[in-house]
């Protein structure tokens, strides 16, 4: 079995000599522009181990069905980072997914989105990464993936099919703001990476742009302007508020990858850019067939409780009956969210009715919020819901049956009462999201050749690896 090389950007040592770094001094303004674009691109979210690691020095473990992927050191360290990259090599890595030694990156790195970036912005990013980031002379832990994931050449075919090779071109029929918004949303901010569903090769299905997709244990919902399934009922101000704070009272809150995107990236963008992103996103129509009228995921459910069914009885008895979900809710959730799930007036503790997490088109986010909690840093403070999975800091480690009971209570009482959760569904989310057709893919791959397996799995990794990190906090 061949030795597997590092997953993303780090150049093998032997090849560094071929790629001397630019010796020029970049202007402060250019470096600052690059810093802003790096923030917009959320590089730090994946390329930093947030459990005590140094910025951009890599080492963040990201779970995938074929093993743990470690992000790489992208500081300008000549030995361990990208300090020896030329601007052309840097550009190819960011926009084409080709690293300095010519090998292909796997699309855990969202170069498909970044491919729209303009040369001048790549130049600024390069200036920032060479001279605005502190070099860290530490080797990030290497990714060790088993065969056949080590066949990087398989990505050549994938790139031919699915990598756009064009930078952004303004649409003259649209406003400058819309064009700026599209450039950012489809590029640096890479919204579609999560919010667009994947096809059979795990490529973004552009025909279903922003209509929702699974991201590890979370679901990135439909954010088209569809008035029932999307966010068509949101005002411009609503969406900008959400991108800035991660919450919109009595509607939705960001958790999982979106909480990270807001914590590290979106809240730091200018109001003008957030408005531009909102302008563009609010113009994206849904191409999915569905009901055209009805309640949205933001306005289902009412304040209520089921306590009369069990209060005054023994806790163990309460767990046995038909009201187990209500009992689990009272014991674990009501202390913060209120006995009627009404939340608090300031919205720090959201109501569980009029809440996208309990009333979406699927139950993924209600299960994941219970198991993984919420962790979001914004200027307004640190929003933290503790997890109830098997983390060491879980307030209570609820089992699959309990999470299913609780989810079904929340869905029926406060959200989308058409959905039902089984303990098996909970187990899938507990393990980080669906493993779906991995085995089948591998079988097809073995029949069709190892390269095809790698091809499929690479796409799958990309899909699965999006910034999934443990929600357990370190001490």
């Amino acid at each position, binding site marked *: 079995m061949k030795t597997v090389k590092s997953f993303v950007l780090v150049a093998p040592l032997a090849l560094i000599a071929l790629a001397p770094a630019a010796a020029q001094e970049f202007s402060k303004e250019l470096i600052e522009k690059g810093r802003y674009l790096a923030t917009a691109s959320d590089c730090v979210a994946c390329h930093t181990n947030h459990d005590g690691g140094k910025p951009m020095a890599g080492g963040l473990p990201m779970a995938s069905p074929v093993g743990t992927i470690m992000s790489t050191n992208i500081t300008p360290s000549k030995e361990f980072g990208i300090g020896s990259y030329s601007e052309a090599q840097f550009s190819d890595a960011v926009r084409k997914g080709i690293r300095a030694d010519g090998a292909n990156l796997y699309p855990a790195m969202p170069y498909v989105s970044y491919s729209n970036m303009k040369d001048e912005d790549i130049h600024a990013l390069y200036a920032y990464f060479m001279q605005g980031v502190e070099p860290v002379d530490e080797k990030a832990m290497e990714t060790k993936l088993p065969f056949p994931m080590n066949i990087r050449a398989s990505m050549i075919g994938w790139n031919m099919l699915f990598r756009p090779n064009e930078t952004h071109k303004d649409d003259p029929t649209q406003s400058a703001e819309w064009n700026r918004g599209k450039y950012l949303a489809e590029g640096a901010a890479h919204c579609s990476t999560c919010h667009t569903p994947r096809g059979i090769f795990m490529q973004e299905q552009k025909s279903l742009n922003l209509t929702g997709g699974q991201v590890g244990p979370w679901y990135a919902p439909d954010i088209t302007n569809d008035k029932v399934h999307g966010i068509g009922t949101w005002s411009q101000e609503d969406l900008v508020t959400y991108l800035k704070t991660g919450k919109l009272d009595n509607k939705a809150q960001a958790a999982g990858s979106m909480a990270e995107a807001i914590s590290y990236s979106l809240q730091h963008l200018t109001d003008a850019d957030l408005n531009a992103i909102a302008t563009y996103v609010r113009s994206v129509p849904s191409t999915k067939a569905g009901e055209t009228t009805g309640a949205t995921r933001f306005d289902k459910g009412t304040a209520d409780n089921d306590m009369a069914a069990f209060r005054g009885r*023994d806790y163990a008895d309460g767990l046995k009956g038909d009201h187990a979900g209500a009992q689990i809710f009272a014991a674990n959730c009501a*202390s913060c969210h209120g006995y009627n799930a009404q939340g608090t007036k300031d919205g720090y*503790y959201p109501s569980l009715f009029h809440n996208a997490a309990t009333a979406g088109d699927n139950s993924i986010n209600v299960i994941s919020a219970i198991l993984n909690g919420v962790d979001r840093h914004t200027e307004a403070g640190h929003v933290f819901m*503790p997890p109830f999975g098997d983390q*060491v800091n879980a307030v209570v480690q609820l089992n699959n049956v309990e999470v299913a009971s609780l989810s079904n209570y929340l869905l029926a009482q406060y959200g989308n009462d058409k959905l039902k959760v089984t303990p098996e569904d909970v187990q899938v989310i507990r393990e980080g999201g669906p493993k779906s057709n991995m085995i089948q893919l591998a079988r097809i791959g073995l029949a069709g050749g190892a390269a095809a397996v790698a091809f499929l799995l690479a796409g799958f990794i990309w899909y699965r690896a999006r910034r999934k990190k443990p929600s*357990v906090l370190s001490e």
Partner: protein
Amino acid sequence: MVTKNSADVVIVGTGVVGVVIAEQLLDAGHSVLMIEAGPRVTRAEVVENWRNAPLGVKGDTSVAYPSRLWAPHPMGGEKPEDAYLQFTGPDAYDQTFIRYAGGSTWHWAGTSWRLTPEDMRLNSLYGVGRDWAFDYDTLEPYYVRTEHKLGICGPSDRSQQWPQTGDRSAPYPMPALPFSPGEVRFTEVVKTLGYNNIPVAQARNSGMPYDGRPACCANNNCVPVCPVAAKYDAETALHRLEKKGATLLVDSVVYKVETNAQNKIEAVHFYDQHKETHRITGKLFVLACNGLENPKLLLMSKDDRNPNGVANSSDQVGRNMMDHPARTFTVTTKDPFWSGVGPVVNSGIMETSQGAFRSEHAGAYFRYNNFARNRFVTFAALKKGLVGKALDDEIRRMAACTADIVAAHEILPDPNNRLTLSDKKDWLGLPKPSINYDVGDYVRKSWEAYSQPIGKQIAEAMGAVDIKISPKFNNSKHIMGGTIMGKDASNSVVDVDCRAHDHENLFIPGGGAMAAGACGNSTITMTALALKAGDAIVEQMRGA
């Protein structure tokens, strides 16, 4: 009997003291086995036990923690002859503690007053009690570590911190919590009398998550349980310790500490819940059961080499039992105060615990209890025969216009305040603890000449229309003194690191070691002693 297990370090007890030592040792690479007498339960169960309990029994914190047959602990409403704790002497040492995995921090308020430098030199300065075996500056770094380990919030303004004497080498990791409406008013009232009501330093996440636990959301339910784990309790550490490699045995009642020919500890023996016995060996042993269970276990373990009990060549094991004898002023006021927003204890007057008068009588700490009042006033309203809206209105009025002011006193270590083994046996056949207790003249004199007058003065300044004073001293449930620390092995049980004078591989850290308890709650000092012992154990294991 077979040896079921062994480890580098065996820790008996899973409360805060055992837990912080266990983590230090695990982080230093040692294997750790922890033995807990009682069960391991989920927070959900405890929370619902409490909510399901009828109002009339909620005066007893332990109602949320029913004791197991094999691990009895004090439960309210028991007949004295059936109770776990047996009492002799003029006062009852009527403590509340629980034998559950996580220990009694499950139901502490989180109050974390440090001792003052003067508290630790009582004999030198005032000619009473005992001096600690070391000074405040020695303990201070361990206080800082405790404040960061447990997540203790407190004020950054020096004039609002306690103690006022002695240096503080690091700020609190979190800011103080805001006062409730009643506390704001109380603070203004006592200011007119010249007293400074300051924020309690408390092990509670104020306005932010800490250590993977959420911010306090003001359930006002700290006692008997924080429903969201915003308050530190040792249960919150158990999963983390297990992930670091600790083995945790529950429902396992240690009844004997076994010594070997070198008079080192060789093993501990325990009963499981089926009355089967087991033996656990180790290189080093930590007794972290609490200030009552530790002396009981040491006395039960007497052998030929140690005829008075293990670690008891000084005959001080079980003696010097201390607490903070307390009297409560229930004040009915003309105007509303409103207690109950935020944590149950959130502020206090500490300066009244200090002064030259300590050569004559005890100091006292005055606390405005911030428990929501409705639970306490409902029965009084019912007794008035009110129904319907009139009842609701009266409960509302009394919830607003009554308040409890508690005066907690320091007590001197007295060898006659003594725990011995009772003739009465528990379910396993082990002797129940019997405690002889007298709060003493030092406390009584304070009450007569000092604390009662101050309390009445405060109540009147609050606009009291009625003052009811508890008829006797109540216990604060701060168990201290039974394995007292000292440099002289002839009159103390443990050395400056809480190591038994008699056994070099036995540590007995926690409240039992405290040579003086002053007026403030003891957990922060117990934990600081645990961390100090932990350092000593790590050092000792390095040489082992």
